């Protein structure tokens, strides 16, 4: 930010031409117009969700509610609650496990490398880009078989869905941690080695204490993608363990559910990730950037 401001100051004299004077107003004006356009869907969601049944028809959707009511919100909450509980049971443990795995992998692939580590890393990365449709049919079969062998209910339940998210999250989590650990000087790890500390000891006492930011990025990233996922959920879960997105889709897909309740449910389903985004946007951004393979 400060770099950017300095840039402006430094280039200002060069730019003080006719065009630049116009540009100074045009830029913010255009940006503001885009803000309005971007917020149109939010406006509709919000105002509709506060309308009573009598006003919740598409014909009046641009109007503010004549009577403000939270009636739609309480009905939507009742309908969506089981899904939200399932999503919490999925996304909280899931993102924590992902972070632990990612941190171990990232550590080894950057600081405790073995022959062929680069190949392994590249093979991991492809896992980040595969369309999950490509594994879905056999995955269902595998979950059924694995569940029978282990004597647990993997297919249809939350544990199976969590397993899938954790496994397919390994590539991105490993990438984020690896790129983060690369910035830690090798000398620190070497010194610890010379002192006779083993791999785990070094990880525990040198690497983990400085891993906070990477953990934040990975946990937020995984939490958001698990919360928002629909594809895995629709293939792998039975009605009793449907997460928020599947429940919301059923509520919204039903012709009988009034618009106000649909919109309130959509907002409710988005609140957790929005809160994370607002409070921890900085870390959210870093996760996004890691997705672009640019550490």
């Amino acid at each position, binding site marked *: *930010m400060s770099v*950017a*401001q300095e*840039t*402006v100051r*430094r280039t200002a004299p*060069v730019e003080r031409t006719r065009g630049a004077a116009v540009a100074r107003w045009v*830029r*913010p004006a*255009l*940006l503001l117009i*885009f803000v309005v356009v*971007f917020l149109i*869907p939010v406006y509709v*969601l919000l105002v509709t969700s506060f309308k009573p049944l009598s006003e919740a028809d*598409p014909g009046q959707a641009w109007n503010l509610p004549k009577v403000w009511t939270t009636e739609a919100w309480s009905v939507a909450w009742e309908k969506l609650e089981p899904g939200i509980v399932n999503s919490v049971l999925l996304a909280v443990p899931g993102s924590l496990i992902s972070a632990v*795995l990612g941190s*171990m*992998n990232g*550590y*080894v*692939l950057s600081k*405790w*490398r*073995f022959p062929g*580590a*680069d190949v392994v890393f*590249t*093979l*991991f*990365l*492809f896992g980040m*880009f*595969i*369309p*999950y*449709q*490509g594994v879905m*049919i*056999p*995955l269902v079969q*595998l979950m059924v078989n694995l569940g029978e062998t282990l004597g647990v209910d993997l297919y249809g339940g939350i544990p199976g869905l969590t397993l899938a998210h954790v*496994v397919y999250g*390994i590539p991105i989590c490993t990438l984020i941690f690896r790129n983060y650990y690369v910035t830690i000087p090798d000398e620190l790890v070497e010194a610890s080695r010379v002192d006779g500390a083993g*791999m785990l000891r070094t990880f525990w006492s040198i690497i983990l204490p400085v891993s906070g930011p990477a953990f934040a990025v990975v946990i937020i990233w995984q939490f958001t993608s698990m*919360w*928002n996922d*629909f594809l895995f959920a629709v293939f792998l879960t039975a009605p009793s363990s449907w997460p928020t*997105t599947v429940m*919301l889709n059923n509520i*919204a897909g039903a012709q009988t559910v009034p618009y106000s309740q649909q919109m309130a449910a*959509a907002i409710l*389903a*988005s609140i957790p*990730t929005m809160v994370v*985004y607002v409070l921890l946007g900085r870390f959210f*951004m870093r996760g996004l950037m890691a997705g*672009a*393979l*640019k550490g």
Partner: protein
Amino acid sequence: MRRVRRWLPGLLLVSPSIVAIAVFVYGLLGWNFKVAMSDQHDEISQGSFVRLENFIGIWEQERWGISVRHAIVFTVVFVGGALVLGWFLAFLMEKGIRGEGGFRAVYLFPMAVSFIATGVVWRWLMNSGTGERAVGLNSLLHYLGLDFLQWQWFRDPDWGMAAMAIPAIWQMSGYVMALFLAGFRGVPEELRESARVDGCGEWQVYRYIVLPMLRPVTLSALIILGHISLKVFDLIVAVSGKQIITDVPAIFMWTAVFDSHDPAKGATIAAYIVLSVAVFVIPYLVWNARKGKRS
């Protein structure tokens, strides 16, 4: 022997992930291709090897042709639109602007929300009623005196998929903006300055100094948008469900599995989705790995 003892613990620590990726990504992809090359057209039979019969046969189905055409239209409009809009937003902000944090937050927040949630409101906004029956965006256009722009949005028989790309652009262009903004800020000010000293106008500086340096970012953005686009699923489920008018391969696959109960057909479609992504992602990853080795 001592060298082995040095790297072996690292390999052991990563091995659970290596096994998981080997089984869940590569094993299941292979399994999927095996199903796709079998005649397992119901859920009971074992299916025998039929080579590429399904891969060829599917082109004879009218619905497959429609869904491929839809995916192409969607991809072109979505990738092009998100790239141009994201670049433009970054271009407006690159020199620093008051309230930059606020602008960024607004453009980026759609990324934190699921397509299922935003689809609820987009389905309504893109209601196909026109004229007397106009609601949603069509009635907004009416208020603005732009009635001639009213159309059927995603229900348009020819260009409906272009409308379907609008919510996707809304969701992803903030991300592209963030990527480009990082790219813009990565151009050293000294470079621009020395070009100016050499007598280049602002436009020439942009054309010959900045634009070439944005190439890697543009490539990353293309890869990310492209692979999201080819597997698009949630958004279409949320906006229009399983209707043929917005059918894409991922939806076709879903109905092949759950409605037609035809694993071989579903696996064939899934294989095509994987191949369409792999043809550009694999070269990209290989190129990326080589570049990493060189630096």
